[in-house]
């Protein structure tokens, strides 16, 4: 067992599950989408990205790319949220809520790709 692999797989899967936890729920109900879970998803996704820094393999490069996509989408979602609530002094609902959730949905797809890559990599390493 390789502790580096464990840590990496842990963060990749955790990024997906947290992302999923934020994403599920109705598009028009703010109470289905918790700010804490978005925050946690961003932090975990960033850490998962950094863990792939400096990997020179091809699959490592693809991992880095998918993680960067997830980061980008999640941070965009957080920025939209912050803008609506802080700058425009509005309540998150309707269209703005839908765009936050759909952005995180895009991140979910990217995180899902990461997990598929992880599984593929694990299967190719036969012990």
């Amino acid at each position, binding site marked *: 067992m390789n502790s580096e692999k464990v840590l990496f797989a842990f963060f990749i899967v955790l990024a997906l599950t947290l992302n999923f936890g934020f994403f599920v729920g109705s598009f028009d109900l703010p109470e289905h989408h918790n*700010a*804490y879970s978005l*925050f*946690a998803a961003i*932090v975990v996704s*960033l*850490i998962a990205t*950094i*863990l792939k*820094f*400096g990997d*020179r393999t091809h699959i490592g490069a693809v991992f880095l790319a998918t993680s960067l996509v997830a980061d980008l989408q999640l941070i965009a979602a*957080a920025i939209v949220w*912050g803008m609506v*609530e*802080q700058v425009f002094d509005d309540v998150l609902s309707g269209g703005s809520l839908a765009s936050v959730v759909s952005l995180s949905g895009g991140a979910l797809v990217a995180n899902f790709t990461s997990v598929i890559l992880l599984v593929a990599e694990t299967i190719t390493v036969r012990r």
Partner: protein
Amino acid sequence: MPNLIYIILRRLRSPLIFLILVYAISMTGFVLIPGVDNQGQIHYMSFFEAFYFVSFMGTTIGFGEIPYTFVAAQRYWTLLSLYATVIAWLYAIGSILGAFQDPAFRQQLKRNAFSRAVLRIREPFYLVCGYGDTGTQLVRSLAKEGILSVIIDYDQNRINELEITDFIVQPLWLCADASHSEVLESAGIKHPWCTGIISLANNDTVNLTVAIIAHLLNPNVRLISRAETPEAEANILSFGANEVINPFDIFASYLALALHSPSLSTLFDWMTAAPGDPIKEPVFPNHGMWIICGFGKFGEALYRHLRAAGEDLQIIDADKNKRNMPLGTVIGRATEANTLKEANIESAVGLIAGTENDADNLSILMTANELKSDIFRVARQNEEHNHPVFRAADVDLLMQRGRVVSNKIFALIRTPLLGDFLRIIARFNDRRASILVSRVIGVVERDTLELWEVRILPNKAPALYRMLKDQEILVEDLLRDPVNREKMISAVPLFLKRGKRNVILPEENRILYQGDRILMCGTLSARRHMNNISYNINALSYVVTGEYIPDGYIWRWIKERRKAKTNKSSD
């Protein structure tokens, strides 16, 4: 370049993760802790406000307690997270600076800069592996000729020395092991402008490796390698090397030649002198019994060549366990008078101090001088920095390994015809050689001797090549002064090569053909004149026909008109 990014990214992994974790924990704390707004009501910070506050706190900018004055619980949390974020930042910045200071990183940086500089080269260059005594002299000679060299040496001290030396043409260098193929590749072994690889390592194995790599990666490139044993020489030659230089062999054959024909050896000396070296006085060793002190690689080469030249030889060596030693060898230290007496120094004509230790060699010379002052003394100098001492010892003939190799290689590089020429004249008898020497002396006198090659090819001598299409040019025409064609410049055509045919000392009325190669020797100004006429059609036309061709279309047109007019009026 990608290597550098990977090194930095890998170094940054843990500090960045630490920084993100510290930020996340501090922000979560601020979002969870209840504060009080201006109206005294409970207010929870949003993530936006928490991120804003932690950002300016962590970077020690500190705008104050925003958005509302903090309660005690928030201040406790601020204290904790303040120190944590500052430490996280210091850690991250320290890691980045550390990565830049890292020797591996800096080496990589240098290597990248070197490969980029090599890739940008747009002129012919030589790749020199090994910057020892030989390499130093060779690179200096090449730079004087305006030839660029790219140097690889694994010894950092050598590279430091290189960095502080001034050259006319600044070479490129890298501190690395030349026996690694990727090092040779980044030094341009496959570069289209790489004219040759010169392998000068002290170690025959390294030279052999370089030869193999060069043979596999770029079989068309010219390879000149140094080797110190006949076995290594044969081995390197089998990998397609063009020339293998064995300093001991060259020197031994030179000494044998000096015994056999002093004028020929003088000629060899001149032809292979480094640029700017004055012409040396000829040496005249006598035939008879020679004592060779030290039976290493040098001693063996001397033994082979001098015995073939028919001399009596007496070997002295301190090591009685050495194999292949000839019969009658005196075992003992040649630095002691008793040993030299045992070797019968009284009846010897010459003594060769050829051990691998400079102090021993000097001591042998001193002892020999006391025993027999009129003996012909030959010394081997191993280290370049001992040269002043050897010069003061006033020996008759000095063997400097580095100089022997670098001069030979330089001569081969500068004038590829020279190798053929030297091989041919080596078979001359002393009388023919004397004629050759007197011809050369008649022209150059005490000046330093320049050697160059005239190649009648479209890119090497365009004017000559063009004019030969519709005009006959004689060897003699090349020797005319482009200022006054009645005068001759100080040059001698030594050798003419036309396809497979060789002509030594071509006659003045010999007709030149396209594709001819002529080896010339003479003074520097003669070389410049000849360069001028091989490029400049006007100068050439004056030299050959005595007529000036006007420069430019208008003058030519006017001249044509005038010619037509005079023709008409004479009709």
